[in-house]
């Protein structure tokens, strides 16, 4: 078997080496584009003390909301609590450390982590709580905050299609944080809807080259729950 065959055949195998107290990135925006099966597996494994990096923390009872139920997360880095009541409760009570990070800064911190950039300046958050304790600097008349990058032991992401070598494509807005997280995990596991042979994805339109991806698993099924079902007449 080639060293480039990244396909694994069970969630156990997909998460081999995942343990308590790790830092884990989880792709998705709200419930859109989340690695449902991998999240479920970590829930089953019951690993705790996790530092979770994800834009949201799912909803009550679904997605990362399940990790919250079991108190698996000790530190949550994200941008939005939203309507997740348990998340808000854990935050307000101080039971879980929450590092609220502006969404664009979060995306860029993850990209930077994957790209070997240890820190960058951004205007976002200057003059707010986000800048407290951080270095600031005026560059060409504008104020900026220095933001360190983020990396993780595992990145759990969701893609639409993968080839066996780990090249990935995403579907529509289910892309969101997934491509950056793919680059920032020491071990990146992609849960996908379909696995095709190498060569079937057009090399000109690959969103995430396989070099970033260590394991690929075909998801058992995707519920793809919708948070705000809005339709026109």
């Amino acid at each position, binding site marked *: 078997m080639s060293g480039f065959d990244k396909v694994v055949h069970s969630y156990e195998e997909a998460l081999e080496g995942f343990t308590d107290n790790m830092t884990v990135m989880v792709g998705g925006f*709200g419930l859109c584009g989340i690695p449902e099966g991998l999240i479920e597996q970590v829930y089953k494994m019951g690993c705790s003390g996790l530092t979770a990096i994800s834009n949201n923390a799912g909803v009550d009872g679904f997605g990362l909301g399940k990790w919250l139920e079991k108190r698996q997360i000790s530190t949550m880095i994200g941008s939005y609590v939203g309507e997740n009541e348990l998340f808000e409760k854990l935050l*307000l009570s101080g039971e879980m450390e929450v590092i609220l990070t502006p969404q664009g*800064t979060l995306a860029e911190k993850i990209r930077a982590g994957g790209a070997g950039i240890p820190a960058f300046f951004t205007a976002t958050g200057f003059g707010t709580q986000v800048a407290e304790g951080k270095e600031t600097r005026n560059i060409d008349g504008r104020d900026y905050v220095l933001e360190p990058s983020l990396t993780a032991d595992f990145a759990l992401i969701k893609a639409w299609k993968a080839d066996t070598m780990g090249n990935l494509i995403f579907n529509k807005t289910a892309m969101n944080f997934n491509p950056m997280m793919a680059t920032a995990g020491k071990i990146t596991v992609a849960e996908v809807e379909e696995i095709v042979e190498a060569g079937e994805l057009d090399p000109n339109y690959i*969103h995430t080259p396989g070099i970033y991806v260590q394991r690929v698993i075909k998801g058992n099924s995707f519920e793809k729950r919708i948070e705000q079902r*809005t339709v026109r007449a």
Partner: protein
Amino acid sequence: MALTREQIAMRVAQELEDGFYVNLGIGIPTLVANYIPEGVKVMLQSENGLLGMGQFPTEETIDPDLINAGKQTVTAVTGAAFFSSAESFAMIRGGHVDLTVLGAFEVDQEGNIASWMIPGKLVKGMGGAMDLVAGAENIIVTMTHANKHGVSKILKKCTLPLTGAQCIKRVITELALMEIKDGAFHLIERAPGVSVEEIQEKTEADLVVPDDVPEMKF
């Protein structure tokens, strides 16, 4: 008469120019899309990774992989593009979005805005709002002038944690359109039938009132 939410959106929509790339926040800003003037084409940017957001889908075309930043199912218009969150905020932070419309709890005469948390009570998170206020060249804040107890939200100094510092230049409320410059609000337009006195009364901030304050036109 104070403006309805729809009328606030209509007034904001008058600021749209043909060819604008626009990011509309949740709430009243979302309604702006319903009042785009005739002959004006805009492309709506949704910070979760979509340029060219369209209307809601039908039951038949609903797609869980196609949502907007409010997590609502949407469609994509002709000429749309999908991209990552990093790319999306590169657009925003890099100043490529022509106009951002977003809500607020409070604004003050230094151009500060508070919109993301009420300590001890409500924490929704800042989402993309901090990036939007830091990145967009051109921001319009839509909000109510005062709370239901009549307490002004147009302040000398914000009391809540800030979303952004010294970044807001234009505010449209149910009573008035104001610009912020030189450390004060300047009254530019008033809602039809609303008196300057009422606006002054509901404004805690320093408010510069010119001799003539025209009514908004719809």
